[in-house]
């Protein structure tokens, strides 16, 4: 494969697509599939055959189109008309009315000028809803692998690192470390063997951003990783993906096979000296494996227990070799940065948090689904404009970001810009992209308890504060929720939280108390209302009945 071959492939595919008068894109991501989008596909094909349109209209399964709560979704190209809640009847109507009589199916048409779409900006998800994830040609037709071609044939590794650094891209896994700096560190370490690892162990319950990218645009990850491999001097990559995502695993396997067949992975990529291979490693259900040292352990076939850093994986990672670890969304940003330049990317978002962020919007909100917004957008815009606000008759209470490591942002901070620093200033974190909206019916002590229950179950058990501390924090929350705790228990709860936060070995334990601390900060009254006064000495003569529990 040469650069010219790639261009030729792209043109061929574009020509193939142009032969169709229409392309019907149905959402083949997990959410819509579980609502029956496969039946919709079959009906579309059947109806097309009946109307003799099978040769001129293509039916394409594509990645997540965002509005998961209203699925299954079908998009008609080239018009770009988007249909929601498509069942078999509607599918037939789309063919018979939209395609044949050219009258859109009004009842199911979505107004794409709605803020849900207008306020979004798609970089990571640009191909979701646009291409068939299972066809490498379709990815190539939308400039896929062009960035890799350019990097390998025209740029020095140091230039690639510099370009990524200048883009201001920060790790999308949650912590927000500068991606360019990380790449630079790994590049500079002297070693014959280095590894590039993609963290696709999306464990935050209530987040499915990475899944959507993996299922909807797997080649984007492969390309991002290969560019990273070239930049840091690695020849082998691993994608560590959750076993709970069978479709993503299947699509990745297929994508790797396709890329290898075309020589986009393997030896002498684009006739250069650069060799790069990618293997999959399947996780087995451990949230802690999102922590980088635990993830490395797990790839090595061990119990996924973290170890103290330093040494950092960039120095001693997989099998003791320098290892670059980034998450799915980070790699997904690489190809566009190379293609369109770091200046373009750096102009999006805020000066310190550049680019976009994908959020999985869920909970007590009208429009649930996957959204991609420029950094710095206000929380209010996300919740009320994009999300459409809370359901009828309830009021917004808080938005939870960062999952079990994050915090709740109350109504008073709705105008906070969504960027790394601002979110942490209000006691939450950017996190990997889960955003759960709570309304006036949500009980915050319960929410804190829910997350602590998760953390205690997911604690690996290596360090004492996390192993035992989370159990006690959960127990205290339970007692508080049941009304059995006294006012003495609240300071104990806070002390335990601070202790677990400051003394735990890894990020899981260090951030586990965050949901409790943040709800204590903004909704302390909800805790205090549940507390009793402890029994004390009552001198005779001042008789009040003894306090009973």
């Amino acid at each position: 494969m040469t650069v010219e071959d790639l261009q030729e492939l792209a043109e061929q595919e574009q020509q193939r697509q142009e032969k169709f008068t229409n392309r019907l894109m149905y959402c083949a991501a997990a959410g819509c599939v579980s609502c029956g989008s496969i039946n919709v596909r079959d009906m579309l094909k059947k109806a097309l055959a009946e109307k003799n349109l099978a040769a001129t209209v293509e039916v394409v399964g594509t990645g997540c189109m965002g509005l998961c709560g209203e699925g299954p979704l079908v998009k008609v190209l080239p018009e770009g008309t988007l249909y929601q809640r498509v069942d078999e009847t509607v599918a037939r109507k789309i063919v018979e009315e939209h395609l044949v009589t050219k009258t859109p199916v009004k009842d199911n048409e979505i107004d794409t000028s709605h803020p849900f779409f207008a306020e979004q900006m798609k970089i990571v998800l640009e191909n979701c809803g646009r291409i068939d994830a299972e066809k490498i040609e379709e990815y190539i037709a939308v400039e896929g692998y062009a960035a890799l071609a350019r990097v390998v044939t025209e740029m020095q590794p140091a230039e690639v690192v510099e370009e990524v650094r200048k883009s201001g891209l920060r790790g999308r896994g949650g912590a927000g470390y500068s991606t360019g700096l990380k790449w630079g560190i790994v590049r500079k370490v002297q070693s014959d063997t280095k590894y590039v690892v993609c963290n696709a162990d999306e464990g935050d319950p209530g987040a499915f951003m990475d899944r959507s990218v993996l299922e909807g645009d797997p080649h984007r990850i492969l390309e991002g990783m290969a560019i990273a491999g070239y930049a840091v001097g690695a020849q082998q990559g691993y994608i560590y993906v959750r076993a709970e995502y069978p479709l993503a695993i299947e699509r990745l396997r297929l994508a790797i096979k396709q890329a290898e067949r075309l020589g986009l992975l393997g030896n002498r990529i684009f006739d250069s000296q650069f060799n790069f291979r990618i293997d999959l490693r399947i996780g087995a259900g451990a949230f802690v494996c999102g922590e980088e040292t635990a993830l490395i352990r797990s790839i090595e076939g061990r119990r996924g227990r973290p170890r103290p850093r330093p040494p950092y994986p960039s120095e001693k990672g997989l099998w003791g070799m320098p290892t670059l670890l980034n998450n799915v969304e980070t790699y997904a940003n690489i190809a566009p940065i190379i293609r369109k330049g770091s200046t373009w990317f750096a102009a999006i978002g805020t000066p310190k948090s550049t680019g976009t962020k994908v959020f999985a919007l869920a909970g007590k909100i009208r429009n649930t689904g996957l959204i991609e917004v420029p950094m710095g957008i206000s929380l209010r815009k996300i919740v009320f404009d994009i999300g459409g606000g809370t359901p009828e008759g309830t009021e917004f209470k808080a938005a939870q970001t960062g999952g079990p490591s994050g915090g709740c942002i109350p109504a008073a901070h709705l105008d906070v810009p969504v960027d790394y620093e601002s979110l942490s200033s209000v006691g939450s974190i950017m996190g990997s992209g889960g955003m759960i909206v709570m309304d006036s019916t949500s009980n915050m002590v319960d929410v804190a308890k829910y997350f602590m229950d998760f953390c205690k179950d997911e604690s690996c058990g290596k360090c004492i504060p996390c192993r035992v501390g989370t159990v006690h924090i959960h127990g205290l929350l339970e007692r508080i929720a049941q009304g059995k705790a006294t006012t003495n228990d609240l300071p104990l709860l806070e002390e335990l939280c601070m202790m677990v936060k400051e003394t735990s070995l890894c990020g899981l334990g260090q951030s586990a108390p965050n949901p409790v601390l943040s709800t204590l900060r903004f909704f302390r009254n909800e805790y205090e209302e549940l507390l009793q006064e402890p029994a004390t000495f009552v001198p005779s003569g001042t008789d009040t009945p003894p306090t009973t529990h």
Partner: protein
Amino acid sequence: MPPTTTTPKPHPSGDNRFKLLDRAITKHQSRGDALIEVLHAAQGIFGYLENDLLVYIARALKLPLSRVYGVATFYHFFTLKPKGKHTFVLCTGTACYVKGANKIQHAAEECCKVKFGQTTPDDKISLVQARCVGSCGIAPVAVLDDKVAGKLTPEGAVERLMAWKNEKDEVTA
């Protein structure tokens, strides 16, 4: 009993499934660091990880027994006990939780008289918890024998569980 033929011996247990497992092990060149991959393969073939199976894997990958046991018990995905005939996987991700998954949990536990993570004594139903199956848009969600049921209610869950419970046992010879 002496072997009657000179063809390659089948696995001592005479179980052909071990051939499949051997293939998975060979694919990874019997490397110890492929333990998790091999356990995945083994569970896929046998349904669960029996002790004998773990011993077999430990020998094949030249790993200490306790390491294999430690790994198999660390990850939620692996199970050392056989699953029930039906599985009810309740999503307890945040979105489902906010939309009342805990009510379904209580109802299901009440109905089956076992806790999540357990199988009913008649081996009919396993209650399993999953941390987010990625269908947050249609929360609360459960996966009933590989079929996703969205916007589930406690009553709906109990109805389906009762159907499983009242299923007649298939006649076994």
